[in-house]
């Protein structure tokens, strides 16, 4: 079962992965596969974590997180998605719903990131005089305050994700056909995302041939194992 201690730990973990996305330390913690694996361990259901991470990661591989680009923040939503299916008697039926939650929160995370970047820009403009004078204390204050704001953003996103997850867990049972269809559709959309991202990154040159070689090996392994 998931108790208050696990919920607090999930809240802390969701905040950490949100901060990891851009602010610090950018150590892959924000990747859905990593965020979900740890969230699964916290919730005491490692299998659920890996299953959610595997599926949501497919969407994240369609993203090139370059500087000013607007990209989803998958971490907190993935933590919430793990809470949806952890210890569930029929986790596969709820996987599609869990992925839906992760995606909604991820898109909200992208919007919150834009808001934060504008907010920091206003702070920087307000302290332009001190920065021009070479005031090291002002630089330090601006930088640390910005990281603090990102942590608050991550905390808020995780609170939303966990509340939605608890709401979904409290809902009545999902009928088998609807649950299966939602999971199948989420998996199909995830496959589209990862194939699209891989093809775009590979282009049409030598890398495409390596992609094809890898895919062929994957098909062969799938058949053999």
């Amino acid at each position, binding site marked *: 079962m998931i108790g208050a201690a696990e919920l607090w730990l999930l809240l802390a973990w969701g905040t950490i992965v949100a901060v990891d996305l851009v602010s*610090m330390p*950018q150590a*892959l*913690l924000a990747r859905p*596969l990593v965020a979900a*694996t740890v969230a699964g*361990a916290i919730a005491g259901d490692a299998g659920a974590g*890996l299953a959610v991470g*595997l599926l949501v990661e497919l*969407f994240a*591989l369609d993203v*090139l997180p*370059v*500087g*000013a680009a607007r990209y989803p923040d998958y971490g907190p939503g993935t933590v919430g998605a793990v809470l949806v299916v952890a210890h569930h008697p029929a986790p596969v039926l709820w996987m*599609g719903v869990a*992925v839906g939650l992760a995606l909604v929160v*991820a898109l909200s995370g992208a919007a919150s990131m834009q808001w934060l*970047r*504008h907010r*920091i*820009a206003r*702070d*920087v403009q307000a302290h332009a005089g001190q920065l021009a004078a*070479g005031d*090291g204390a002002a*630089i*330090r204050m*601006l*930088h640390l305050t*910005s*990281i603090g704001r*990102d942590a608050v953003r991550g905390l808020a996103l995780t609170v939303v994700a966990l509340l939605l997850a608890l709401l979904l867990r409290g809902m009545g049972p999902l009928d088998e*056909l*609807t649950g*299966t*269809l939602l999971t199948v*559709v*989420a*998996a*199909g*959309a*995830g*496959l*589209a995302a*990862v*194939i*699209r*991202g*891989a093809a775009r*990154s590979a282009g049409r040159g*030598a*890398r495409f041939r*390596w992609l094809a*070689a*890898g895919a062929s*090996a*994957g098909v062969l*392994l*799938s058949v053999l194992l």
Partner: protein
Amino acid sequence: MRAAWWRLFSLQGSWNYDRMIGVGMGFAAKPLLEELRHASPERHAEAVARSAEFFNSHPYLAGLALGAVTRAEYDQVPGEQILRLRNALCSPLGALGDQLFWAGLLPAVIGSALAGVALGAGWPAVLVAVVCFTAVRCYVSDWALRRGLATGMTVGRAIADSRLRRAIAVAGIGASLLVGLAIPLVATRLAVGLTTRHVALMLLVAAVGLLLGKVAGTRYSSPRFALVALAVVLLIRWITP
């Protein structure tokens, strides 16, 4: 130097549309410029102000610029030249870092982790991916800062002579190969327990997503497509319970 290296891990903490990672660079430069404070207080204030000016590059390679600019400040290079060097380094460091990490190493390690999990390796596959990525990232950040500090205004030549180009080629091949390997393995794992009809539906949804992505180009969003598809399922099941 160790303090500056640690601070490189939070370089993007104050990312904004005004100076991008400029303030983060200023924060990381502070420990490196401390000696200048005693040697030349006036120059120190100017150097600190320059260190927080607009800057944008890949965060893992920004150490090259940080080191080079710091060395130039100690070498008493004129301020305008230092700012020109900073601006000149933005694009190449951004492009090299994006290719090496975001389009190379990151998909490579995530692809290997996905393949490992799909094959039943479990959480150790994820742990190995995180450790490998972090080890390379730490090494590159350390190399970049040291190289920048050693070369100063000639950092451009140091970048050209480095093994970055070769590393980008290898990482790109690894990314394509490993993500390619992971896709069928993950698809097979997702299909476990599903009927043939459900597998066909999964592949149909994937095909529709790819087709829409082709037609809509950059306007296409994978999460939005997934959410619309999930909403369609709920709508159909509501109409035909």
